[in-house]
């Protein structure tokens, strides 16, 4: 298994930079996800690693082998890179059977017949499609095609597996199941994987590390929990769910043992303590991120970090109830137990878990 290294990689179309100076390292066996809205450059980045598009700047190294170096004009075509890829449309060739589709990479490499049939069977077994080998490809469902596409990408033991939104064409239930199965398979084989998606839940559930991209640049790289709880900036914070970002002023900063900082903040009618990745000089205006699930209705006590307000909307979502509350600090979204149902128009007090409060520069 191999590592991937992108060094200052860019892709320019005329004046437009689809990908702008991306630095990324994926260790051997790691599952790295490129996450971002459509047009953020994540697919272009993946395609540059694949060799389907040529980077106009920077270097791409796979397993200590430079596959593309814009400065030297070196470019290795995709077929020489020994990478497996699963496409969004699966790209299962309709004029072949399932077996022929999976056998294709081995036939290209002129493997002996016995070996081909053995390895194709093994690959199909891996994705639980071994009983479909003789089927013509158009007779498969979307989920089955996806499995065949994975088998085809794995059969020749590629150095890295690239996946371009492979789950986006499946329905919601199948998406979760297939995703979990794929992650288990990836862990078992220990294959380095680069995965592209716009779905944040998918990214968090599958990845070792998530790379959040926007406008061709990397906003943040980190483990799913880190990205979710400790975003670098508002862009990353807003990408996951709909967090409350409350304006506040920093009063004091203290470094903590784990490299983070504890910040005393004060806002409109509230004050409290939150954490941050950096210290702020007193008087700095910051955004405090509080996720709806980390807030609750006070049962009477009103600590410093609390907001009084009026319920303006209440939506039953099954697992929980979402409230919109008008407060002096602005409208706040809160997720509470579905069994509690404060009436619209009633006045409540909201409190937050200080450990979940995260301050960022605005």
């Amino acid at each position: 298994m191999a590592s991937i290294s992108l060094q200052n990689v860019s892709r320019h179309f005329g004046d437009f930079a689809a990908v702008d100076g991306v630095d990324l390292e994926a260790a051997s066996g790691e599952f790295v996800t490129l996450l971002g809205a459509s047009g953020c450059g994540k697919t272009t980045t993946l395609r540059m690693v694949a060799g389907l598009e040529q980077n106009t700047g920077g270097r791409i190294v796979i397993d200590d082998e430079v596959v593309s170096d814009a400065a030297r004009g070196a470019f290795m075509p995709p077929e020489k890179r020994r990478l497996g890829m699963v496409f969004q449309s699966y790209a299962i060739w309709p004029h072949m059977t399932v077996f022929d589709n999976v056998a294709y990479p081995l036939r290209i490499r002129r493997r002996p017949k016995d070996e081909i049939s053995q390895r194709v069977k093994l690959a199909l077994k891996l994705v639980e499609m071994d009983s479909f080998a003789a089927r013509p490809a158009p007779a498969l469902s979307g989920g089955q095609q996806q499995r065949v596409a994975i088998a085809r990408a794995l059969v020749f033991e590629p150095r890295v597996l690239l996946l371009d939104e492979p789950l986006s064409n499946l329905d919601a239930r199948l998406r979760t199941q297939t995703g979990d199965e794929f992650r288990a398979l990836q862990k078992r084989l220990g294959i380095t994987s680069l995965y592209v998606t716009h779905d944040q839940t998918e990214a968090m559930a599958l990845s070792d590390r998530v790379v959040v991209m926007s406008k061709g640049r990397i906003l943040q790289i980190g483990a799913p929990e880190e990205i979710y709880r400790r975003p670098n900036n508002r862009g990353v914070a807003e990408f996951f769910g709909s967090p409350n970002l409350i304006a506040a002023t920093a009063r004091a900063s203290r470094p903590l043992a784990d490299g983070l900082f504890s910040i005393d903040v004060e806002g409109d009618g509230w004050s409290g303590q939150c954490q941050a990745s950096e210290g702020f000089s007193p008087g700095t205006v910051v955004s405090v991120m509080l996720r709806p699930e980390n807030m609750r209705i006070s049962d009477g006590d009103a600590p410093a970090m609390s907001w009084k307000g009026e319920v303006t909307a209440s939506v039953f979502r099954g697992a929980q109830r979402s409230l919109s509350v008008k407060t002096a600090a602005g409208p706040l979204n809160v997720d509470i137990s579905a069994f509690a149902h404060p009436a619209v128009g009633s006045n409540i007090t909201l409190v937050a878990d200080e450990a979940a409060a995260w301050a960022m520069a605005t």
Partner: protein
Amino acid sequence: MSEIVAPLQAGRAERPASAGLWSRWASGRGIGVLAIILLLSFLTIYPFAMLFYGSLHSTPPGMAGEYNLNGYRQLLSKEALGILLNTVGISLGKTIPSLTLAVFLAWIIARTDTPCRDKLEVLITLPFFIPPILTAMAWAMLGNPQVGLLNQLFKWATGVNYSPINVYSWGGVVWHMVQYSTPFLFLFIVDVFRAMDPALEESSRMCGASRLRTFGGITLMLMLPALTNAFILSFIRGMENFESPLFFGAPAKITVITTEMYNSINHHATPDYQYATAIGFGVMILMFALVIAQWRLLRGRSFTTVTGKGYSPSVMKLGKWRWATFGFCVLFFFITVVLPVSQLFIGSFFRFFGFYQWDMLTLEHYRAVFSSSEIWRAISNTMLLGLGGATLTMALGAVVAYISVRTKWRGRRVIDALAWLPWMMPGMVLGIGFLWAFAMLPGPIPIYGTIWALLLAYLALGTPVATRVMTGAYAQLSFDLEECSRVHGASFFQTLSRILVALAWPSFAVGWVLTFFGIMRELSASVLLYSVGSEVLSVVLMKLWANGLAEQVSVIGLMMMLLVILFRYVQIKILQRYVTTLGV
């Protein structure tokens, strides 16, 4: 709220009255469907039946005769077999190089970074819209073994007294056909190239296959059903071709089915109608067999490679080779359009074509053409038939397509099948069928020998294409659009005019121009159905040519070329402006 409810309740009160209207309308619909079936039958089944009758009857209509099988007996002769083999040979001989060329050109336009591809595409497809009779005559002047311009240039350039080019040959017939088949096939294939999901090819590259291997193993294989389809279609059209063998085959004693039919009527001491109709019927059976074979061959083999996403297929960077591919496209355009048009241009200004000296320059041919009442009449006939014929054909096609794809009315399958039937009838065969059909009509319906005969023939010949264009247009419009209009209170006819017509008219216009071109270029049926007073341009051109007036032919040819370019320009503008934005 109550204000909205009130009129709805009022509407409910009217319901019994509207139910009566509904049943009246439904019966009106039945009559309409029946009328269309009758009209289509008159255009297809009737001439087809008359063809069969003619092939069994020893004399033309109205003359005493007997029923016998002499016509078919003649068909079984060794000579007739030779003609059949000739036809098949020529058609295969032109289809194979045309298909190869078309795939190559389509690949250049759809899949490489050759400069100015959009403009090249327009130029490459232009020959398809030029009436074949024009280029046939132009090439007869260019490649005449004695005085052809190309041969003269060769002699002048090399000093050798030898003519390398002789268009009056097997090669000449094939060459002229290739000029038409290539753009025709190109139009088919370029869209197949474009519609293909690029991931199908990219995944092959990721599996380790080179560009070349991917092209051969994936791209071409995925296109195989479409290519087979195009091949058979082009082969059928080759068998139906009349102009090329007439102009280049006949002088070299090369006879094919269409020219044999034509000769047996026009060039025999007594026209052998029975033989001609027997050939016509035989050809119909042959075409039918071919179409069935095509259908069976392709059943279940059309791969859906389109995922409905708008993507730009990966374009191959050719480096400096892109100028070679650019040059190749330009060369194709030069040979198929510029060369023949220049010949017409030059030919129109010299006293005799082939003698290109300064003192031979003249405008007398222009004077002769513009002062000839016969030519003016032919121009007005052609324009009248073109404008009226195209409008009627498209209207019929629009109605037929609507009934067959947008409704569940009874009789829609019959209508669809009838409208498709002329697809298998070569113009020559349909011409003879109509000749009989009109002659057999009772006296009070004087269609025979009038301009109406031509109009009906054009209507029949154009209907399959018109229907196909409109079917395609409707297929792109979701049913929701119509249903939404009905739900929001529009009646059936309001929906038709405000939604369907409003959305489908660009396709109608594009099909109209296509049909107009079809009428302008039509020769094989016209030459059988015209009579004095109802000549069209293509027939007049042929007569002038037969009388050795190639120079006047050039003048008319140039005028027709201007018309072709003008209409093609308008068509492209409509396509670009409306059809793409509507996604039709």
